[in-house]
């Protein structure tokens, strides 16, 4: 976990880790985390900038109702990170504003 994360991990069951790429950098992330939690564990805090004003946002509700944790996962933009379990080899990218069309 990054030093600048707002969170730390309590002692976990030994269920191993998976390798997840966040903005191109590899991280070992505990199996069973969702993407939003993986982002909160590995700073910086903001996971996107908004389409309206470019303001920075981070996960807010962790249950799929606020849509603030929208990130690009394996090439698909605007996926709710908190609703997506991490998988080995997953590629996560923070989003800036509106998604591209391609």
């Amino acid at each position, binding site marked *: 976990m990054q030093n600048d994360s707002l969170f730390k991990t309590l002692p976990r069951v030994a269920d191993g880790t998976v390798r997840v790429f966040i903005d191109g950098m590899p991280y070992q992330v505990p199996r069973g985390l969702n993407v939003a939690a993986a982002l909160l564990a590995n700073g910086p805090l903001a996971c996107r900038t908004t*389409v309206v004003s470019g303001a920075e946002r981070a996960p807010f509700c962790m249950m799929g109702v606020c849509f603030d944790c929208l990130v690009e996962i394996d090439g*698909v933009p*605007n996926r709710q990170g908190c609703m997506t379990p991490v998988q080995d080899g997953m590629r996560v990218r923070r989003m800036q504003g*509106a*998604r*591209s*069309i*391609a």
Partner: protein
Amino acid sequence: MQKNFDTSDYDVAVVGGGLVGMAIAFGLAKRGRKVIVCDGEDNSLRAARGNFGLVWVQGKGTKCTNYARWSLHSADTWQGFSDDLEARTGVSVGFERPGGFNIALQPDELAAKAATMQGLFEAEPRLKYEVLDRKALAERLPAIGPDVAGAIYSPNDGHVNPLYTLRALFAAYEQAGGEYAPNANVSAITPSGGAFRLTVGDSTLNAGRVVLAAGLGNRTLAPMVGLSAPVKPLRGQILVTERVQPFLAYPTIYVRQTVEGSVMVGDSAEDVGFDDNVTPDVLGDIARRAIAPFPILKNVRLVRAWGALRVMTPDGLPIYEESTAHPGAFLATCHSGVTLAAAHCETIAPWILGADRPTLLDSFYAKRFAV
């Protein structure tokens, strides 16, 4: 709900606060008249909330060339109308007129559309158009997919944000001194000594003239003042996607990208009475209609959808009429409240105030429906 109206007379009462009513009301107020708009409730049926946003001319007028001319007149007036609204209110309604495309997936479809456009052009040479094959189309719309035969392009077409248009009209109307009464359903209109008394709940108000712009509600109001509004609902469903980076610089008849970046996809024409729900089968059809010409839309997400009820006369053409039994009572109805907003403000409003009725509007009397 009890209304406390100003007890002095209004010059004009407009029944209905949608795009037709507000465009006319603003046109009246900015010409110095004392106007009141009586509008329905927040959850009343409102065609004004269901628009696609096209300011469209091409393809119209096959049964009545004057309808094409009327649409063109309004489209030509739109830039000035938009500039006026923005200057008065600061609201930019996002009007653009780069021309528009009617895409054909099959060659025979393209040929049929071209034939239609040729006929219209011969009747009215200002209805310019081009027939584009797929290659030429791809130069203007790079996102176009492979399974497209071509398109008709016309420089007369454009698009706008219809909700911001209504919002700007509200602001401009109120700034010009117009009075707006929501939750003010008009239950009766009584002609009285050359003027009109409107009943709203337990209250009444008086106006020298009255304009019926209540959409489907006009059907019951019109006979009260000696007019006829044989309108019926025709449902249209529309999809709106998440915002995407700009990819479509022109409106097309089924797909347009808004200034904010979201993509609107329409539509349907369903005779289902007063049912404004969305249905999975039609949404699926509309989605397929978006993906066929623009395959890159396949992975774009639908964020919201709606159904709205168009206000349709038997032939789809507008009605603009003054009552002969009760002069001073006017009816205005159409199903293209966005395209015609400029003309309603700048041509219909002056006519209501006594200016000559343009001969163009001769085609739009309700008596054409009399058997």
